[in-house]
């Protein structure tokens, strides 16, 4: 067995790897991000074979191996399909800014979409106050502040007047 205790000093070399990128969104995600930024609108894309509406929009339906063709405007409301309360900070690696815990994090299927979107949920972090099936709306940053990124979404918030099913 090895051990952490060594008589001699053990040397280590710290290196910060910092690689710059200029990512191109491409034809499909590019339209999605521009529409989100400029119009606050979510777009999915429908597969001509299985009819699945996919978000984010992408070139190929992985299931059917065909090009996706039909753009579909999605709702800004949807249904919660999964959730958790995060007790650890979540750091945005693109900005280095942390979201402080605890906070509610959820997975929402926007109306018209077959895909889900994970994001913050503006509900106090208490599992008794949130349930699968809850109706949610997307709350966006104001138009001038949006950059074409999922961080343009502030959070999901529940529609008013919902009662938790027994």
């Amino acid at each position: 067995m090895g051990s952490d205790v060594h008589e001699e000093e053990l040397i280590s070399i710290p290196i910060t790897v910092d690689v710059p990128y200029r990512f191109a969104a491409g034809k499909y995600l590019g339209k999605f991000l521009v529409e989100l930024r400029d119009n606050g609108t979510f777009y999915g894309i429908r597969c001509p074979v299985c009819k699945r509406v996919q978000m984010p929009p992408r070139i190929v339906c992985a299931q059917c191996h065909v090009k996706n063709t039909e753009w579909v405007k999605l709702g800004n409301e949807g249904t919660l399909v999964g959730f958790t309360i995060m007790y650890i900070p979540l750091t945005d690696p693109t900005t280095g800014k942390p979201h402080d815990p605890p906070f509610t994090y959820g997975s929402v299927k926007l109306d018209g979409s077959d895909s889900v979107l994970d994001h913050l949920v503006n509900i106090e972090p208490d599992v008794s106050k949130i349930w699968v099936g809850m109706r949610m709306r997307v709350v966006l940053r104001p138009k001038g502040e949006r950059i074409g990124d999922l961080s343009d979404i502030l959070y999901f918030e529940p529609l008013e007047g919902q009662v938790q099913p027994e």
Partner: protein
Amino acid sequence: MSERVAIVGVAQTRFSAKRADVNYAELAYEVIEKVLSDTGLEIERDIDNSISCSHDIWDGQTISNIGITDVIGGHLRNEEKMAMDGSTAVYYGAIGILSSEFNCTLLMAHTKMSQTNRNIVNNDAFDPIYTRILGFDYTSAAALQAKRYMDRYGITGEQTAKVVVKSRANAAKNPYAQVKESITVEGVLKSPIIAAPLREMDIAPDSDGAVAVILASEKRAREITDTPVWIRGLGTCYDAHYLGDRDLAECMALRKAAERAYAMAGIGDPPKGIDLIELGDEFSYQELLWLEGLGICREGEGGKLIDSGVTALEGALPVNPSGGVLSGVPANVMGLRSAAEAALQIMGKAGEHQIPDARTAVVQGHSGFCGQHHCVIVLARD
């Protein structure tokens, strides 16, 4: 090899300095869609394995084959990523078919060099304990190799410049090539020093692009095409890592990889029996050094070879009729592109840069700085 594997289809993008209009999945799909439609094959029905070829650090995504799973047909199916030069994807794809686990394999290599900085990327390939913080990259390492090689054997800047001139002349005839402008030896020698003795024109430019190749077992190959290109020999080999460990003027790993491939292909006395070579010339001197490693000439005679004109398009043994990497082919994609171009030659479909009656081709690819890992593949019509 007792059983056989063939290249039955190839597709490549037009290589370009920057493709801002597509992400790497869309770039990849251009060649996947084309090779499938050219061969009449369908993912679900015909392809039972896929191998992609790129690197996380180039793609800017951890486990970057996540990004091409959808387009390569990886969903609920087999997909593996070769984190090496594309030539090795051909090597491993052929092994998969020879094992009888697979019958028809889709290979695809892609990289967008334009989206990042190659020197920063390649600096991370140097060992972090003794070398990396000195700031080396593939170009500075190659310069050390070029100096050592040229000094030992008296290879001149004019001779390496001739490699660039030949590359451009060949690229001008290749519709997929990126840099086609003709240049003279004087023009190369007038380009600025980047890392002595390497000048700007001695170094392959950044490139965005993708290549797809389909391999098939003999039975499937006969069903798919009338012009199968048989994989006759395969070889790989690693050299030492540290620059100072290697004799940079020689290429032990390439020599061994070539010996392995030639032994399998029954090539006893190269270049006898070889009609053309496609190799990874990221730097002009590499064409000469790699030709020595491939046993095409004796050590130190690479310079004489280019002087003789033997390796020109109309010479007895054309090298890089496609224009090679010097005319612009992305890292990682290089070796798969070489295999695709060699296959086109053997199929007789290379177009303007076709070598008459090309029957046997040698493909070389390498990974790591100064060619630490080499892969050699012998392709043939028969």
